[in-house]
């Protein structure tokens, strides 16, 4: 009796496997979920990109829903998304920049020129539009590490209490915004 059924087992397992493989074809293996979702913003004290006298702390950010956008002028995708982010800003979205400097390496500290960087950022933002309320300079990438950032661009959605709701890797465009961010923000405002 059951010899026939036993013989069918490999076939059935294979069919199941095919279903998963088929789904896998349309997924993106590079899209990641990191550990920070649902946690509050890590504490930090970092200078403003344009003015090192001005120090930002985690508690300065509490009270508003905002996007934290990790970017750098060295990253072409970041530059590409600046104009869309500027559009979002004009619609009333609060965006804070976290400047992620790739070239800075504490072991080779001598090559870094902050003034050159500021000039570059200003020139860039003048061209594409400036979506940022302000930019936090994370020269040692410590806040980035605490946030689970692996590169740029990456964007976090943070609520009024400072809880991280979303962590998006890659650029923000209309599709991503409508499918991922807008629904969350709707939820928050209701």
């Amino acid at each position, binding site marked *: 009796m059951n*010899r*026939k059924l*036993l*013989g*069918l087992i*490999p*076939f059935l397992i*294979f*069919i199941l*496997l*095919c279903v*998963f*493989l*088929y*789904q*896998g*074809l*349309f*997924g993106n*293996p*590079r*899209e*990641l*979920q990191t550990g920070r979702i649902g946690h509050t913003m890590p504490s930090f004290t970092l200078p403003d990109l344009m003015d090192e006298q001005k120090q930002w702390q985690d508690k300065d950010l509490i009270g508003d829903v905002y996007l934290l956008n990790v970017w750098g002028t060295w990253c072409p995708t970041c530059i590409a998304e600046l104009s869309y982010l500027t559009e979002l800003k004009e619609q009333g979205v609060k965006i804070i920049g976290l400047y992620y400097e790739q070239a800075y390496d504490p*072991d*080779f500290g*001598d090559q870094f020129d902050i003034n050159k960087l500021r000039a570059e950022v200003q020139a860039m933002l003048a061209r594409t539009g400036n979506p940022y309320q302000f930019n936090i300079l994370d020269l040692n990438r410590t806040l980035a590490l605490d946030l689970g950032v692996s590169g740029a661009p990456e964007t976090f959605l943070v609520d009024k209490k400072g809880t991280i709701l979303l962590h998006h890797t890659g650029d923000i465009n209309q599709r991503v915004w409508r499918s991922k961010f807008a629904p969350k923000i709707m939820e928050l405002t209701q």
Partner: protein
Amino acid sequence: MIPEIGYFSLVLAMALSLLLCIFPLWGAHTGNLRLMRAAPSLAVGQCVFVLLAFAILIYITLTDDFTVAYVAHHSSSTLPWYYKVTSTWGGHEGAILLWLVMQTLWTAVVALMSNSLPWILRARVLGVLGFLGVGFMLYTLWMSSPFERLLPYYPVEGRDLNPLLQDPGMIIHPPLLYMGYVGLSVSFAFAIAALLTGKLDNTWAKWSRPWTMAAWGFLTLGITIGSWWAYSELGWGGWWFWDPVENASLMPWLVATALLHSLSATEKRGVFKSWTVLLAITAFSLCLLGTFIVRSGIIVSVHAFATDPDRGLYILMFLAVVVGGSLALYAARVAQVKSEGRYQFLSREVALWINNIFLVVAMLVVLLGTLLPMIHKELGLGSISIGVPFFNQMFAILIVPFAILLGLAPMLRWKQNKLSPLVKKWLLLSVVTLVITSAWLFGNYEVVAPLTFIGTALAVWIVLLTLFDLMQKVTVQNTISEGVKRLGVSYWAMVSGHIGIAFVIAGVTLTSAYSVERSVRMLPGETATLNEYVYRFEGVKEIVGPNYTGHAGVVSVLKNNKLVIELHAEKRLYNIGMQFMTEAAIDDGFFRDLYLALGEQLTQGAWSLRIYHKPYVRWMWLGGLLIALAGFIVITDKRYRKTSAPSEQQGVGA
């Protein structure tokens, strides 16, 4: 014009393989001998046209025809000629063409060497191989042609071959691996033909065995060389990372290893018939699955191949048809298969069965570990990674019972054995094993971790028992030379394969336990000490290669103040892709490798260097070669060339 001839040649090949698929299968079904007789010439014909296409691809690469997209993307005019040749399989389209070359070559060889087979079986085997050929050719012609043109705007210079692939290991690794993969399609074809015929007797196993052995030998070689390539080319001294691409080649190997053991039980004792067929189907299915994993981009791997969802979809459909179809056929026919042999618990049959369990479990560990991260994410449970720590742990557990049994099994005869004389020998030999292992490890190292001891002991155990068994079997005859003569070819293959495994186990264990490394910052003239060697950094000189420039760090290696060797660790910048490559300098030796990689340039003329001392690392690849040798020894067996039905003369080996 010439690339178009290549394409057309493939079209002709596909027409022939369509006929090869239809004629013999239909002929076998209706009993039409004339249709069946067409198979061998069709098989040779399709091979000729595929070879012609391949030769044309090599020709247009050598002549730098950058109007052809494949050449423009994977070669350049400054590439040395031998890397131009290998660039024909360095990209996706060419790799699939190489697969086709192998596929049709194997088919032709089967067609020419199978005249002892009954026509009905021969026709079915070739028909199934023809079907596989059609699948791959359609794929090549439809979505992955290497002869596509970039007209009218073509580049004046190609993008060059990925520098990682510009290495001797890469010249031979893919062809060997594909020889193995495609070779397993022959075992698969035999299994399907036997299922179609409905006669799963031991003659089927006998015919299938040499092909399986050869395929397995090539696969072993391919994996071994791949590991050696990663070690010498990636610049981190690593030799196995459990990357999905590596796993894709390991899974069919594990099942093929199970298959050739189970084939011997089926051939000689008529047991495990339905299981053996299932293994033959599984082994090749895993080759196809591996190809799908590697080529579809569903899994993140270090090896970035072409990832195009359409191509992935095609391979998945092909996989579904081939594997789904054969498993359905299996389900329909398996109930009729009856195993006939009787055996007791303490018998070689049971030992081979346990061997199969462990190999299949090992394959499942690899399969689950490779696919579960993807499934986990599809189920909305988030991203996880499964890698080195998981696999190492699982394999460390599995290898212990496996290796112990591997030592014992050859001493067991078929059917049944008396326990007490065996136990006496085993106890004695295990004491000897412990003594040798202790002397070896405690004599050389201050710290011996329990796992290191176990691993080494397993290797010693296998060698000891294999040699002991060999000695017993040789001395049972009147003279030693007669004893040696009476041992079958497959026995010698077993000895080689098992000792090879012992070398792999010892190599992996010892190099994992006792490799040391240092990352240092050095100025010219400075020295660094690692184990008994002193490394003196002599400075850096400029190098200019055919298609790269760079720096070579010159390091003198001294032992007891005597110069051992001068090593040149290079850091190359490839001109076209502007990619940096670390070319490690290796002083290889039987007992240790010295491995040196040049890092980045630091301030004040200093350089960062990584120095590795890797004991016994070569034993892994030596073991791999010995294992592969086993496969090639078996095919020299004259039994497999005889035209007569099953022979009475049986080797003692499994």
